[in-house]
């Protein structure tokens, strides 16, 4: 295979869910969560995936993270099919693709202290787990060291999401998948988290896939964006083009209504 600059290649990925809707007899309904999607992500890029709830963007994220094998199609990370690699290569993939979830509390083990959560992750990646490493991680996400000895339920939403980000960057990955990282947070906290994410990206040169329903959030972080609807890509391209020169009917309607709704603060 010819070596390309692209870090991740998604080729013709379709993910189907079977849902039993029959009351007495077996009657299946097939839901096409992701429907034949292809795109590339280049190293160092921030790709935005925009779409309303139910557009299949979170399912796609799970699949890229290696948690959900697509029904058909392949996902390549540095040229290797992530659902076929084993052993050392698999560990390499695991270490290099990390994810931040929407619900910061749901993504932290409620019965473990933050210190132990982070230690487990570092151990799994065969990294040092001493106090200095933990502290520098906390410093990186602007948290006090005291947080290390707390349980997730004792944190605020913003703090919990910072911990989740610290965990995701602990293994020093190349690709970070951000699945609605701020939609469960208050706007003022969202602004802080977005600033932090931007800082991390510039400092570490990470590649991001940012999934969000909020065009404003995508606008803040991304240059290239994919708009999804009902499992399909509606339109993709430069974020400025999507906002100022949308081609497809759906994108036009979406941007137009957003601009109308937020008209008072936009001007």
């Amino acid at each position, binding site marked *: 295979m010819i070596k390309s600059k692209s870090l991740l290649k998604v080729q013709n990925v379709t993910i189907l869910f079977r849902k039993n809707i029959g009351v007495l007899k077996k009657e299946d309904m097939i839901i096409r969560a992701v429907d034949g999607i292809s795109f590339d992500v280049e190293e160092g890029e921030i790709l935005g995936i925009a779409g309303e709830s139910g557009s299949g963007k979170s399912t796609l994220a799970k699949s890229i993270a290696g948690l959900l094998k697509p029904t058909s199609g392949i996902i390549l990370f540095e040229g290797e099919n992530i659902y076929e690699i084993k052993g050392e290569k698999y560990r390499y993939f695991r270490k290099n693709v990390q994810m931040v979830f929407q619900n910061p509390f749901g993504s932290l*083990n409620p019965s473990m202290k933050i210190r132990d959560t982070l230690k487990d992750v570092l151990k799994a990646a065969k990294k040092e787990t001493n106090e200095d490493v933990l502290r520098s991680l906390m410093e990186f996400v602007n948290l006090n060291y005291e947080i290390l000895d707390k349980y997730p339920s004792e944190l605020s939403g913003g703090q919990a999401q910072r911990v989740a980000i610290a965990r995701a960057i602990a293994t020093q990955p190349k690709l970070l998948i951000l699945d609605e990282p701020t939609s469960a947070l208050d706007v003022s906290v969202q602004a802080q988290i977005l600033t932090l994410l931007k800082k991390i990206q510039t400092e570490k040169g990470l590649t991001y896939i940012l999934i969000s329903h909020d065009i404003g959030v995508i606008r803040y972080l991304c240059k290239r964006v994919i708009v999804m609807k009902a499992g399909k890509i509606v339109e993709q391209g430069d974020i400025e083009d999507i906002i100022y020169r949308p081609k497809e009917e759906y994108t036009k309607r979406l941007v137009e209504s957003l601009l109308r709704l937020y008209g008072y603060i936009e001007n």
Partner: protein
Amino acid sequence: MIISSRFIREYYEYLKKDKLGLTGAIIVMIFIFLAVFAPYIVPYPADAWGYAYNIEQRLQPPSLAHPFGTDVYGRDVFSRVILGSRFSLIIALGVVSIALLIGVVLELFAGYLGGRIGTFFMRITDMFLAFPPILLALLFAVVIGRGLLNLIISLSLAWWPWYARLTYVQVTTVKNMPYIDAAKIAGINTPTIIFKYILPNSLTPVTVQAFLDMGAAILEAAALSFIGIGVQPPNPEWGLMISEGWYLIGVAWWISIFPGIMLFLVVMAFNFLGDSFREFNNPKVRRLLESRGI
């Protein structure tokens, strides 16, 4: 664990208002105290253990020297009833913890693996669940023989499917939580995920349930001892004592009645405590208590 000091403190606050639950808690605490210290506080320890025979003092009605009277062999019923709490506590703890261990371990794997293996284990569990536990325990007790240890084993074998069911439900919920996905993505290995991430977060409902079941375990053990296939004489188990005095109920009622009352009180206390605990754990009530509101 969710059962933390804060949890206990909040439950204590709740108990203060729940009179029935408080009554249950007090009786249970007295029961545990008696079970632990019985041999040192009863007036006639030898009578209590059952190896002293005072034929000249047999069948005496309650008096100052023998508050609950004496039995056929002239043993002090009061001492025996008090020591009986130790047997009941051992049975309750033994049955519940063995059943808990079998149920939790089995369904932890079944629940995590899911698919065909999960279904297979669940069907086996369902087969057990189809019979009343007392009937199964009776069957096992007849097969493996009498005695305290065998009683505990046969009751546990009949008991675990209830905990299995509960664990299974909990594990299937927990394994779909985002933090399990997060752990997988971080590359944490499967045994660690099962024991460190899923197990602690699945245990609370089943341990609460096990605690509530102690009263029932005591009652069923007493039933098996009553029909003669449980604890053997001369040990002072309540069910056994009731059966020992049963044929004399017209002549010396105290032999059966006092262990009966004790059994009744302890089982009732566990049930009161259980109800209040369940009410406290009820999501609606919890939410009210926890509502840092706003």
